[in-house]
């Protein structure tokens, strides 16, 4: 099972064993990782599952689709490595992925 490490805005790291096929958002919610709200439950409708992807994994994680990108354009504190975590599917390839959660999702 791939491991994903969630880092909150003040630096606390939480390595979590993730399930293939679930999303980075679901993995966080099910394991009580704070910092991700996910109000719409992964429908790409709310932008409250924003994370920053570690630069080293940007390529493996891939590019956001148009819908996600245009949601991100309007999120608070977006950076070049911003993603909506409900749109990233966990796979073996992402083993070791590190994502940082923003201070606030609103």
């Amino acid at each position, binding site marked *: 099972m791939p491991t994903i490490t969630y880092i909150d805005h003040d630096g606390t790291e939480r390595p979590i064993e993730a399930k293939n096929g*679930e999303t980075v958002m*679901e993995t966080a*919610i*099910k394991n*009580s990782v704070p910092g991700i709200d996910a*109000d*719409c*439950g992964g*429908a*790409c*409708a*709310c*932008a409250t599952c924003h994370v920053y992807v570690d630069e080293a994994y940007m390529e493996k994680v891939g590019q956001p689709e148009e*819908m996600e990108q*245009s*949601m991100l*354009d*309007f*999120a608070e504190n977006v950076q070049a490595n911003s993603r909506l975590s409900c749109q990233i599917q966990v796979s073996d390839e992402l083993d070791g992925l590190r994502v940082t959660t923003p201070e606030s999702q*609103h």
Partner: protein
Amino acid sequence: MDLSAAQKIVIIGGGQAGAQVVQSLRQFGYEGDLVLVGDEAALPYQRPPLSKAYMKGELGEDRLYFKPAAWYEDNKVETLLSQRVEKIDRARRQVTLEHGGHLDYDALIIATGSRPRPLPVEGADLENVFDLRGLADVEHIQPKMIPGHRLVIVGAGYIGLEAAAVARQLGLEVRVLEMEQRALARVTSPVISSFYEALHMEHGVDVRCGARLARLKGEDGKLTHAVLASGEEIEADMVLAGIGIVPNVELAEDAGLPVKNGIIVDEDARTSDPRIFAAGDCTVRPLAHYARTGRLESVHNAIEQGKLAAAAIMGKPRPALDCPWFWSDQYDIKLQIAGLSMGYDEIVVRGDIEAKKFAAFYLKNGLLIAVDAINSPPEFIASKRLIMSGASVASETLKDTSISMKEIAAQAA
């Protein structure tokens, strides 16, 4: 009333709002007893996918749950499932459980949600006539979602139309009967109504507006026909009712709490009893930004009121209110709604309806009050902020797609 010393908190209803209250109470540092009583068999789960990806079979059941069973254990939340609360005794500060026994409370949250409005016609109890509210309903519906089966959906609201889209994609023959002259008449403008009517017709759904269901006809207790007021008989293997909901207010009403089309709560989600809160579909709440009260049926509302109640109980500052929002997925179309359009006096369309990428902005006295954004997230997100800040934006500017939503938002700020 300060409840921060509460040691016993009971939540009635394990849906979106109930689940939120439990999570927020623990997050805000509540350490006392926490009991969630729910009359469904399942732990709290998301309803939106029930008429979308889950109904279609694209999302496994395990992915509907807000939290796994272990979370409730780890957080010392006692869950009493398949168990109804029968009565609230305010003088004793006690609730009575269906299967016997009582629970004492220092603070109580009513999060009983709503139930589908029953079809008010003869034959509504025939076999193969369904509602859509919970997991158990989908369990009954799914085996009948067979290619070629003739499905009649009564009511062209969001849930009915979403189910129509799923059924078409699964190869059923689908008719939608709507009593009003247009789809979504209760919730949106004619622009959006005609867009969705056309979309469904394009996908082969027979959308009949102004069609009143008179009764359902069957043989040996099994549905065979939907009969219209005009006398027309439509052959049907299955009927799905989507004619709106009724808030579950009876417990509150019987306990003497003020109820008017919903349990009346204040800006902290508190009822007239300082120890009792209510959250979600079952409430009528202040809508400060719209200077009125109203009952909202949305995930956003259930989450927001859940947080408000938990914060009030724990003596935390009231969380900032979000602009009301909602979404609907049909075929490859995502609708995102921000704000409440009721009472608008002007509609501005931005984008290209033909290209299925546009937004309908609703203005009142020149101020933006709501938007329906079709495959247009920037219009949705930018509007959430514009609506709440009360900024005035000229309709010519909103219309002009050569000015980006970013620029519009920046100009208005």
